[in-house]
């Protein structure tokens, strides 16, 4: 028992080592938050381009680039993308690693968000587009006022899940020496030679965050269902 308490002390208390975890958590949350924002903006734009092209045949060039973006991002591991952005694209630029993290995870998430949003748009009855058109609303207006609000409601749970996935995915940020939550735990492990406690602590923090967010999503879904019944 004494030995365990000693390990606890060494892992978290001595030398303020708990700060590796709290600072790491802060970094993780910052990256996740801004990456989610970036991902949503990118995702909605790409989805708009893709579905406009599918429905009207316009935006051919943009659609071409959107398709390449989706294929490349969804076809390669996020960790490789992170490494390329840091060591290749920003190789000769001094830049805050957090910004690199936000860019990498945001660009990655955008591709998945785009497909979620597109599926949401596709799920709306084509009659809604026609009703908008027959009232003189052009495609962008119909999209904005009629299709998107309905699609958004349908995809909200999927979008929220994407945020949760993104939160966990940022754990590879340590590969560019970003001191996120995972890296924080790993630093403690490397100085104390004690793996169990710091890694379990890291896992627990992720778990609490994810379970908390998931229950929020579930609540959201229940509320949305309610309004469906009118």
């Amino acid at each position, binding site marked *: 028992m004494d030995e365990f308490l000693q390990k606890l002390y060494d892992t978290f208390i001595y030398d303020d080592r708990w700060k590796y975890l709290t600072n790491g958590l802060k970094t993780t949350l910052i990256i996740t938050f801004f990456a989610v924002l970036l991902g949503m903006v990118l995702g909605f734009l790409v989805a708009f381009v893709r579905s406009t092209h599918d429905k009207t045949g316009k935006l051919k060039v943009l659609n071409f680039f959107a398709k390449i973006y989706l294929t490349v991002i969804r076809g390669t591991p996020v960790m490789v993308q992170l490494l390329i952005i840091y060591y290749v694209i920003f190789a000769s630029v001094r830049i805050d690693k957090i910004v690199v993290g936000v860019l990498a995870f945001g660009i990655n998430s955008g591709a998945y968000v785009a497909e979620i949003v597109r599926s949401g748009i596709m799920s709306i*009855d084509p*009659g809604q587009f*026609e009703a*908008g*058109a027959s009232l*003189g*609303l052009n495609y962008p207006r119909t999209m904005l006022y009629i299709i998107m609000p309905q699609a958004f409601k349908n995809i909200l749970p999927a979008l929220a899940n994407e945020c949760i996935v993104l939160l966990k995915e940022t754990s590879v940020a340590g590969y560019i020496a970003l001191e996120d939550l995972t890296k924080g735990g790993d630093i403690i492990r490397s100085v104390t030679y004690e793996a169990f406690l710091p890694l379990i602590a890291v896992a627990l923090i992720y778990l609490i965050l994810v379970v908390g967010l998931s229950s929020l999503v579930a609540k959201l879904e229940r509320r949305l269902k309610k309004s469906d019944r009118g």
Partner: protein
Amino acid sequence: MIEVNELRKSFNGTEILKGITTNIEKNEKVVIIGPSGSGKSTFLRCLNRLEQPTSGTITFEGVDITNAPEKQLYKVREKMGMVFQHFHLFPHLTIQKNLTLAPVKLGLMTKDEADEKANEMLNKVGLAHKSHDYPSQLSGGQKQRIAIARSLVMNPDVILFDEPTSALDPEMVGEVLRIMKQLAEEGMTMIVVTHEMGFAREVASRVLFMEDGLIEEENEPNEFFTSPKSPRLQSFLSKVL
């Protein structure tokens, strides 16, 4: 008001409309009947270019809209209301908002003007008390009356009805037809695709019989129903009357 000349429409190589030519004058109530697959709905949907014609021309109020640029097309659609078989109300908006969305967002009316106009039209279709409900809370007949009110708010010059009562339970058909009849009496120009022969007989100024992508026969309703000339119309009427 609407001049259609040699209108053709093909889907993936199958010709649905095979050269339709007709003129629709202001205040006319044109009812189009015919067997399913004869191209009635496609014809109607070509008039406001929900379907792009393959060839031929459509002229609306003197303007050729067959290949009109989008901006002009949307202007035309403001003046050409459409009522669909499946209503297509906007489920995420209240009835009031369903009516006011287009005129407000298009800058045709202020919000207050649109609200006033919407109330007037809701009264007309007898559903003023539903203005704060959502479409899912209405019956089919009520939904279709709202859809008619929605097109009326735009002050259209003509309304296209695409089988407006085909998706309704039988006991709700009457309430929708009554509204349509009232509109007709007020002088609205209407083009109606329907299977309601009673409505055609009573309200139409002219009935078109479409068969296999062509107008097989057209006449004023009395003549049309009592002494049909083409054998195909005779056989069609013997089945539906």
